[in-house]
């Protein structure tokens, strides 16, 4: 059986609701607990927004370091060209041949022009 008092037909209920809200807003509320995670997230976002280092962006949008690693690459390449262990094979030279006849004078002109250029 439903014991709740039903509003009488025609009686306004709005005033009662307003009074309840008024009462709640004037009653002092205890401080809500601080969510540490939210705080950390907010601080992190704020810090990230500050540019801390200079980055270079290449043509396809990815960030690349402004650091010359050519020396490392050279050392690495040298270490990898070291021949370890003895190799045996049944060949001394490899490959099939294809001959292209050219106009000797034309090629010589190109060579002459290129020999005057710097690398």
């Amino acid at each position: 059986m439903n014991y709740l008092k039903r509003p009488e037909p025609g009686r306004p209920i709005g005033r009662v609701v307003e009074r309840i809200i008024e009462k709640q807003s004037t009653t002092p509320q205890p401080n809500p607990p601080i969510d540490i995670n939210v705080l950390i997230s907010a601080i992190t976002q704020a810090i990230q927004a500050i540019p801390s280092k200079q980055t270079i962006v290449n043509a396809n949008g990815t960030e690349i370091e402004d650091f010359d690693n050519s020396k490392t690459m050279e050392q690495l390449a040298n270490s990898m060209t070291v021949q370890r262990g003895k190799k045996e094979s049944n060949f001394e030279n490899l490959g099939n041949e294809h001959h292209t006849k050219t106009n000797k004078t034309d090629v010589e002109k190109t060579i002459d022009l290129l020999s005057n250029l710097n690398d």
Partner: protein
Amino acid sequence: MSNNANNANNANKDDMLDQMTDDKVKATVVDKKAPNTLYKFKPGCGVDIGTSNIVVSRQTEDGTFVNKYHRNMLYPLDISEEATDLLEKSSYLYVKVNNKYYVVGEDALTLVNAIGKGDIVRPMKDGILNPALKEATELLFYIIKAVVGAPIIPNEPLRYSLPANPIDVPMDNLFHKMILMGFFKKLGFDPKPVSEAMCIAYDCNPIAKADEGEIPLSGITCSCGAGMWNIALAFKGLSVVEFSCTKSGDYLDEQVSKMTGVDKAKVIKIKEKKLDLDNVDMGDRVQAALSIYYDEMVDRMLQSISKQFQKQKSDMDGEIELVLAGGSSMVPGFCKRVESALSTSEFPIKVYQVRHSKTPFYSVVQGACVRAQADYSKLQKK
């Protein structure tokens, strides 16, 4: 890709090489006992180390380029009595490293097909040393040594082609450059890298037409390889702009295979045997898809050239030639497609002619050889 598909793929590439050795050219096995001594070569050696092939070029006194090509592939065999017996009784070329035999070049393909199991391995992958192959550097060095041979003079100038850094993937060619430099120095050469696309300019000599007259070694050159295409804008033999893009022949094959559901090896076979871009059989869905993707590749190429030239603020007065070379440019009708796309695009430089290299497969290495000879000539002038 399955082993069979790999083999079929390689077999199709063989067909392509067969086509290249037509009656104008001569393919012979080199005399094993007399490398670099059969001909009177001029000093200056060009080398093109690719994922599929190693090609070396030298020029004789009479002006003929003698190009040596070797298929860059290996078939590993564990050392056993049977393997030793097989290699002793056959004429397969092999090298023994650590605890394995590696059958090299064309023989690797023959053997894998005969045995029917195992995989072909490559010392190079995607244009760089194959990280999956532990002995990659040692094997590659050994093979390069056998293909290139010894310098004909002390410190002979050598130029090896180097692709430009691509615009579409983060990749740096520095390590590749250093490794090859180390190899050639150890062989006694004086090595220097040379831009892959510029090699085509040195081989084909594009001509620009300006008010001052014809300007040699000036134009746009494009090396359309399997893994990437390389572009350069050359002016009087110097590179003004250069870049590369990885969406080339291999990408095209993969896309067509995905879209049509046809095996990649079959796509390659149709591309190399049947496809004619002047006369596409639209009833064949693979040919139709290949034609569409070729158009996309050409459009992407021209758009990238426009963007890069505008970005670098490159400009050239007059009219220029666009020269094409490389394996992916060998499909009949490719040049016409480029011409047609050029006529409808807003290209920043006026192109009066699209030219196909007479020797598209050897243009890069021949250009490298010309550059090396120029280095030698420069030394002589000093």
